[in-house]
């Protein structure tokens, strides 16, 4: 630097200005960028440098070398890409006809793998009107090939101005028929639709799903996420239903309902140890409502089972307790009478077998509101049945627990519950005394544990014995099935019509369990049959519902592995053992 230099060439950072502002541009960049910039500078000035050093040929070599390096890198990249695509490309991809509209829903199967719901491939038909040569002729041809197509929709699509959907759900044959016409502007798209091959069988239970593959009711809704997950993993989704049991239940239920002219009917078969629902039917099949979980009924005398169980469990009564039913029981101004009046002092067994309103009212009022509410809560009678179905309805509960309410509750009035609640409560009573929630999941509800204790094992055994005796010599005799040791309780209630209980609108119920003998932990199955407004007389559960229970037990026992055996009351073939052989010594 000298005094002759131009002023503009002289640069000195002003005091106080950061040193970086005085440095070359590259210095402000990151080290890597600076290195790169330096490299470019070095290459650009190589020629000058070489000339300055008197070795111009070196510059040429450097340039040739650099060009070679660049080309080598590019061609190596291409070669690697080519080898990769030659060796590792997905060869089948070209020929695979993947359906982009495939439903991600697993097949629903029963516990033995029988198909309940599946996805079936269909085609939807689109028309691109601008590409159709002769629209009128095309319309005629297509209608001739598939007559079921709607003429209006076809016409709208054919004479519209853009691509339009004509029909969904075309079978492969129908698609071929249209495709073979070789028309222009006709397009097909593959689509999956949910199919229910069983028709009306188990339809209330299985429910439905929409065209997008989302469950809208029943099992399809309840297990929607799991069914989709199973579908994505390529697995079936099994539910607890046994299609054979379901079939028998539906057939017998429909036969009984038709025979007695019932407006509706419900049947539930469960495994009382696991809470698995093996069959659940709702008659008539034409309604969409699953009455087994979404309809509530006053069920009448079936509740006497719970009242007596509570009395036995609290120690207020045992098999030797005598209860006065010789005259009407007055609760305030209300006289409680017996339907089958005996007008005498009854043992606990007789109260149960004669279905004495007086007897159970006395027991319920004796126990008091708190005890009764406690037991009803534990039996799950005051809350919606904890089953997976979203349709599970809440019961209509008593508003207060006065003596007159307790009397009504003791024989099944003043509380309306769903059949599913009744089935679960009967399960708790007969499985050794633990409340196991009903479940449609194969294997039972998740994390159900041991279940809450409702009554003691001893009470459970006592109630099983009482239920068995009720079938042998009480109101449930029509439910007996040879050698299957059926136990159960009838229930008959009048329905409220215009604010009054009307005897011509009745509900007949039979809640059964089989086999009723054997120790706690024996595999037992509960059958609940409810007939809504039967038209034949008598309308009681013992006549309208019990015979169906017997038929069902007879037919499903081989499927469930229940062997016919003799017990204290009848032989394996159903012949009665004379009462003098009764070793129970019940003191009558």
């Amino acid at each position: 630097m000298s005094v002759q230099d131009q002023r503009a060439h002289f640069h000195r950072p002003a005091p106080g200005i950061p040193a970086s502002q005085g440095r070359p541009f590259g210095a402000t960049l990151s080290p890597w960028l600076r290195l790169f910039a330096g490299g470019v500078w070095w290459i650009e000035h190589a020629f000058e440098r070489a000339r300055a050093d008197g070795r111009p040929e070196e510059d040429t070599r450097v340039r040739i070398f650099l060009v070679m390096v660049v080309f080598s890198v590019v061609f190596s990249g291409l070669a690697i890409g080519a080898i990769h695509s030659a060796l590792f490309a997905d060869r089948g991809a070209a020929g695979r006809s993947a359906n982009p509209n495939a439903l991600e829903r697993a097949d629903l199967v029963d516990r033995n793998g029988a198909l309940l719901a599946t996805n079936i491939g269909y085609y939807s038909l689109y028309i691109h009107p601008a590409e159709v040569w002769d629209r009128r002729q095309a319309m005629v041809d297509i209608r001739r090939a598939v007559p079921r197509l709607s003429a209006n929709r076809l016409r709208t699509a054919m004479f519209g101005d853009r691509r339009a959907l004509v029909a969904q759900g075309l079978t492969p044959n129908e698609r071929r028929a249209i495709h073979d016409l070789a028309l222009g502007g006709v397009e097909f798209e593959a689509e999956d639709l949910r199919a229910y091959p069983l028709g009306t069988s188990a339809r209330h239970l299985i429910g439905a799903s929409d065209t997008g593959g989302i469950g809208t009711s029943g099992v399809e809704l309840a297990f929607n996420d799991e069914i989709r997950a199973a579908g994505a993993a390529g697995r079936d989704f099994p539910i607890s239903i046994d299609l054979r049991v379901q079939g028998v239940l539906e057939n017998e239920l429909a036969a009984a309902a038709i025979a007695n002219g019932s407006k509706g009917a419900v049947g539930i078969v469960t495994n009382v140890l696991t809470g698995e629902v093996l069959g659940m039917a709702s008659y008539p099949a034409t309604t969409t409502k699953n009455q087994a979980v979404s309809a509530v009924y006053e069920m009448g005398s079936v509740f006497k089972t719970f009242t007596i169980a509570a009395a036995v469990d609290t120690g207020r009564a045992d098999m030797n307790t005598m209860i006065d039913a010789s005259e009407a029981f007055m609760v305030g101004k209300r006289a409680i009478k017996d339907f089958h009046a005996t007008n005498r002092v009854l043992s606990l067994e007789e109260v149960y077998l004669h279905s004495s309103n007086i007897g159970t009212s006395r027991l319920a009022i004796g126990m008091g509101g708190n005890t009764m509410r406690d037991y009803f809560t534990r039996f799950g009678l005051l809350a919606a049945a904890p089953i997976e179905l979203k349709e599970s309805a809440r019961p209509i509960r008593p508003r207060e627990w006065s003596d007159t309410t307790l009397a009504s509750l003791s024989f099944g009035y003043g509380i309306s519950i769903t059949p599913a609640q009744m089935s679960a409560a009967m399960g708790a009573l007969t499985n050794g005394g633990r409340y196991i929630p009903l479940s449609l999941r194969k294997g039972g509800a998740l994390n159900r544990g041991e279940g809450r204790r409702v009554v003691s094992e001893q009470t459970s055994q006592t109630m099983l014995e009482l239920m068995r005796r009720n079938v042998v010599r009480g109101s449930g005799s029509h439910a007996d099935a040879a050698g299957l040791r059926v136990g159960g309780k009838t229930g008959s209630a009048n329905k409220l019509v215009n604010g009054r209980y009307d005897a011509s609108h009745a509900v007949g119920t039979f809640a059964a369990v089989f086999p009723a003998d054997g120790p706690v932990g024996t595999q037992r199955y509960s059958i609940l049959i409810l007939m809504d407004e039967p038209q034949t007389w008598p309308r009681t559960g013992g006549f309208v519902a019990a015979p169906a229970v017997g038929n069902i037990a007879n037919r499903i026992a081989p499927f469930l592995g229940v062997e016919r055996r003799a017990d204290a009351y009848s032989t394996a073939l159903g012949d009665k053992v004379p009462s003098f052989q009764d070793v129970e010594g019940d003191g009558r």
Partner: protein
Amino acid sequence: MTAGLVFKRLFDWKIRGVRWVEIIGGLLVAVMVLSVYIAKAAAAREGSQIGELESQIAENRQRVRLLNAEISRLEQPARLEALSRAAGLGPVTARRQATEAQLPALQAMPQPAAPVPAASVPAAAPAAAPVDDAAKPAGEAL
């Protein structure tokens, strides 16, 4: 040093003005190109075959699903029961049922009716008759 010279002379050996190394190199490249072409062509043919088979599998799978659904439809309990009832069939009563363990007891029952058809019909007819007759008394006796 000598080896280097030999190598250089060998390298510089030309046939009609073209280095032999280049000729061999060219030939090798040609062979490689041809073999790659053949391999690729074969792979493409197999690829399309695989694709075809896979689409066939997918189609068949769809067909199996359809047939399964059809089986399920035909075997729906209500239909089977209606057909059985129409054919005069019905549930078997407890008296006509037997377990596996009871089978020997059933066989041991006497068959008084067996010789009669054998006497009247000399040929193959008796084979069917005794079985039919045997079942009845045995079942009744259970």
